[in-house]
Every structure is written in structure tokens, then in C-alpha cells.
């Protein structure tokens, strides 16, 4: 069950967040959301989208670091702290 203030979203994995976002988009497009809840569900969808984007940016930063460090010698595997 979602927490009312959407605080749970910050703890979601990418897979869980994208899965819930897809469900929300489908429900909004099919008109299966009551009018009164529509805006709250849309706003949760926006936060899920931001969570997915944040996780993607972190993943890209890690990949980028390995690429940039591979100058002849194998790069370290230490993850880049993007926070």
C-alpha cells in the first residue's frame, strides 16, 4: 500500500518504480481512476518517473566512470558516488 506522502518512492528499486509507473499510465489512459483521485495518482506517477530518472542517471554515471578510466590499464570497480 502506498504511503500517503509518497515517501516510499525513494526506497523503490528501478524495476518496482517502472512497473508501478506503467500501471498508473495505463489506468489514467483507460479512465479507470476516479476523478477525485486522478490528480493524486498523476502526481505519484510524476514522482515515480523522477525516481526512475534518478536511478538511470546513477547507473549511467557508473558506466561513464569505467569508460573514462580505461586508459590502457583496467579501471577500478569502485562505484561513482553521484550523490
Amino acid at each position, binding site marked *: 500500500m502506498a504511503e500517503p506522502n509518497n515517501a516510499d518512492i525513494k526506497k523503490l528499486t528501478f524495476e518496482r518504480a517502472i512497473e508501478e509507473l506503467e500501471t498508473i499510465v495505463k489506468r489514467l*489512459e483507460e*479512465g479507470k481512476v*476516479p*476523478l*477525485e483521485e*486522478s*490528480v493524486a495518482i*498523476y502526481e505519484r506517477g510524476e514522482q515515480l518517473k523522477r525516481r526512475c530518472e534518478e536511478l538511470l542517471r546513477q547507473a549511467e554515471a557508473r558506466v561513464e566512470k569505467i569508460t573514462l578510466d580505461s586508459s590502457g590499464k583496467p579501471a577500478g570497480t569502485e562505484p561513482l558516488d553521484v550523490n
Partner: protein
Amino acid sequence: MPTLLISHPASLAHNNGPGHPERPDRLRAIESVLEAEKFQTLVRVQPPAADIEAITLCHPRDYVEEVKEAAPKEGMVQLDADTSMSPGSWEAALRAVGGAMMAVDEVVTKKASNAFVAHRPPGHHAESVRPMGFCIFNQAAIAARHAQRKHGLHRVAVVDFDVHHGNGTQEIFWSDPTLMYCSTHQMPLYPGTGALSERGDHDNIVNAPLRPGDGGAQFKEALESRILPRLQAFGPELIIMSAGFDAHQRDPLANLQFVEDDFAWATRKIMEVADKTAEGRVVSVLEGGYDLQGLSLSAAAHVIALMRG
């Protein structure tokens, strides 16, 4: 000729239950701001209840009878996830339809220059056989067909600036080349319809969806570039506004950023088209708007524009 303000106390007896955003205080807030001195020249009238025959212009008789039978003598009956009936709802619904029809009669026969119908429940989500989204009967659509049947008008348009798409009006008008439906609304949002690609069987549906966060600038662009040219080309002999004020920045049920002046601007632009094609004939029926301050001040700005103030 005066601007009419059509309302009836029966609207206040329609109750969706405690905590529901579509509540009687919405109308009390509008009535309160319209008591100011600058609104003294409004002619205030109460509408009769519509008869069932009139409602069948847009809803099958079976549907109307089902709604009538669902109306409770006490307590509440839920018609859909958002829409309920209380003991006062049946009369409120009939007076709301009666008000929209009266507005058409008075404006088309030149007894009034235009009219604002301040009623509940709203109507634009009500499809031909389905109540939804706080709506039971589709007042705007019935008023359009009433103008055709009783007064012989050929082409009537509804312009809907409520923040939600008027799926009901779109559904009722879809296959009728004599009726045009134009809408600006937030997408994505309830009820999920209103994409640009939804154009009706005769290119008679014009949807101009706005993105969450959009404000007056995007609204004006959508109206000026997409809706008004199509509206004028259609040549309506009467324009009915589905006047919802929930695109206001204060509204809790959506994410658009309109201010009062945006509604006044849109009202004037739609009236300009009516002046060119419809001898100025405009009828405005209340739809949504759920922040009492945003709703009442926006409705006031809308009415001032109707009064050419």
C-alpha cells in the same frame, strides 16, 4: 439586453456526501461574489425543472428512468466511483437541465444577450447512458439539441474549458455533423479521453490537451491556434460554454496554473466568435471548480466578461 444569472436553491440540496469536493458551498461561494455592486444589472431568475422528454434529447428514456428510480428518499445512493445521489439530487438535476434550456430560450429569443447558469450537479462527463465524474445529465449537450429542436438552429458548438475533458459531450456529439465540441483540458488526467487524435466522425470534435503545469500562455496558444479558427469555420449559430474553473492554479484536483484573468480572456475571445457567427448568442453552464476562492473569483471574472464589463 441584460446578462441572465440562472440558479435555483434546489442545486444546494444535491449532496455527494461528506468531504466530497463537488459540494453545495461551491454555489454559495459563487452567489456570494455575485452579490457585489458591479453585478447589480444581472437579471436573476430561477429555472423550471426540465421534463423527461427534454432530457431524452441526449439520454435514452431508460437511462433517465433508471436515474429517477435510483434517487433515494433518504440516505445516499452511489452511481459511480465519484457520483452520488441524495434525496435532493433528482430535482437538482432536473433544474440544472431546465436552467440550461431556459438560458437557450431567453438568449435565442433576444430577451437576454447571454446567460450564466450556476447549477449543480455539473454535466460534461455524463455520457448518453452513463453517469460519471460528479455528473448525471449532460446539460450543455441537452441545451445544444434543445436549441436545434425548439428554435430551429442548425449548428451549435460547445466550448469546454473545464480542466477535465468532457468525455460525455464528446460521446454525444461524436457522430452529429451539426454539433461541434471543442475542449482544452489537462492530459494526463481524468477521464483519460481528449487526445488530439479524437476528432469525431465529421471532424466535429476539436481537442487541445494541455500539459500539467501549463498556464495562461499555453491556454491562450491552444485556444487561438487550435480552437477558435475551427470554431469560427464551423459557423455556430449559438455557442455554449462548459465553464469549469478547475484549471485555476489554486484548484486541488488538477495541475494547471490559470488565473482569473485567463478565464475572462477566454470568455471574451469566444464571445468574439459568437459576435461574428451567432449574433452574439452565448450560454454558459457551470461545470467544475473545487477551490472556493479560485472558483468564485474566476466565475466573477467570467460573468463580468459576459456582461461586457
